[in-house]
């Protein structure tokens, strides 16, 4: 598959602080990547850097062969990066349907298709963003990102704080996106085994550097490496 995203020698952080140090990886069209590591190693910072919200010190970010690093955040979204932030960022004054339509861009992901993926959102279409439960907010955050018709979906801890029954529903949805819809995804997730089950490739960060890269299946089959790298319980 053609290359979608190429990150090379990325060093970035917040203000004077450097969080990411010489990070390089690629994502192909339709590929799936688990981004793993303990708390505070730079996983979220990496996604946020891809969206252009940190201070980039050196390195390149290329998107379908073009330089992405010079673009502001909204242009990165227009280019095809769909971000599902950890905080979800619901707008309290907008309804569910407005959340979805206000960001809509032409493509295969339409309002009916998002409602088909998340029937609960259709039932809640008139409710405001701050009237939703955590699980509904996460569904809306993913649905909103899909409505931008992204080439790559960045999922930042999509299961955090959710009950097991909702987690497994989201697992099914993300698997549909990856396996059936062919959407490229990067998944940041504390539940390493879950993230590995959803993806083809994996990288592990430690203190802002990539310390491991392999297929997800290979890492999942190596309990010793998992314990050493991400301390899976």
């Amino acid at each position, binding site marked *: 598959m053609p290359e979608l995203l190429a990150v090379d020698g990325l060093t970035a952080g917040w203000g004077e602080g450097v969080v990411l140090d010489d990070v390089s990886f690629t994502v192909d069209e339709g590929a799936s990547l688990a981004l793993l590591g303990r708390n505070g190693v730079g996983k979220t910072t990496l996604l946020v850097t891809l969206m252009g919200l940190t201070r980039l010190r050196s390195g390149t970010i290329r998107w379908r062969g073009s330089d992405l690093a010079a673009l502001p955040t909204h242009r990165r979204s227009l280019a095809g990066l769909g971000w599902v932030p950890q905080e979800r960022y619901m707008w309290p004054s907008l309804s569910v349907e407005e959340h979805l339509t206000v960001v809509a861009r032409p493509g295969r992901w339409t309002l009916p298709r998002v409602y088909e993926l998340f029937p609960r959102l259709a039932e809640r279409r008139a409710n405001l963003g701050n009237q939703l439960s955590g*699980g509904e907010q996460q569904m809306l955050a993913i649905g909103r990102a899909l409505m931008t018709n992204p080439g790559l979906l960045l999922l930042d801890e999509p299961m955090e704080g959710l009950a097991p029954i909702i987690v*497994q529903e989201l*697992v*099914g949805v993300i698997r549909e996106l990856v396996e059936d819809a062919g959407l490229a995804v990067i998944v940041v997730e504390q539940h390493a085994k879950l993230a590995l*089950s959803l993806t083809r490739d994996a990288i592990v960060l430690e203190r802002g550097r990539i310390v491991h890269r392999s297929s997800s299946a290979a890492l999942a089959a190596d309990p010793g490496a998992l314990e050493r790298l991400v301390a899976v319980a």
Partner: protein
Amino acid sequence: MRAVTIIQDEHRAITAVIEGLRHLVAEVAAGRIVADQALLAALFHYIEAFPERLHHPKEDEHLFARLRIRRPDLAPLLDGLAREHVVGRERFDDLKALWQRWRDDPATLAAFAEAVERYSHFHWRHMRREEDEVLPAAARSLAPEDWAAIDAAFASNDDPIVGVPAQKAFRELYRRLVAAMPSPWGVGPEAAPPG
């Protein structure tokens, strides 16, 4: 080895539903919410139709059967787990009977809640043994042709009794449970408090 992902997915779904049942009944027993019998019926239906009728037989007939041939030394482990599939079905039937008894006699709620706890722990331990002992042993010991046959069996997932593509039917049923389970366990309306 696609079957491993499917088994783990199915384990998570089964565990989530049983945990949902456990939480709901515990909340009812603690007097914090009113019982939604229709939702409990839907949870019981899922557990009966999916793990008891579809998931466990697939493990017995495909994964365990091939592993028995490749690893005769694992017979005690596999015998024990296969026995638990039978015992699990009996425990589920007992649980259903206690649920019915509680509906007839509200004073038996505590006994029902305790039985749900025990059933949940039983399933959790069972699935942990399968994931911690059987799946790693299978990954090490089964040949590619074993996995091809197991993958095909788990991926098709058709239920000869229902006569429809069961995977799709259970996905839809699971979605309905997620939508019906009160927040924060699902995304349904908050459960009604007593009184």
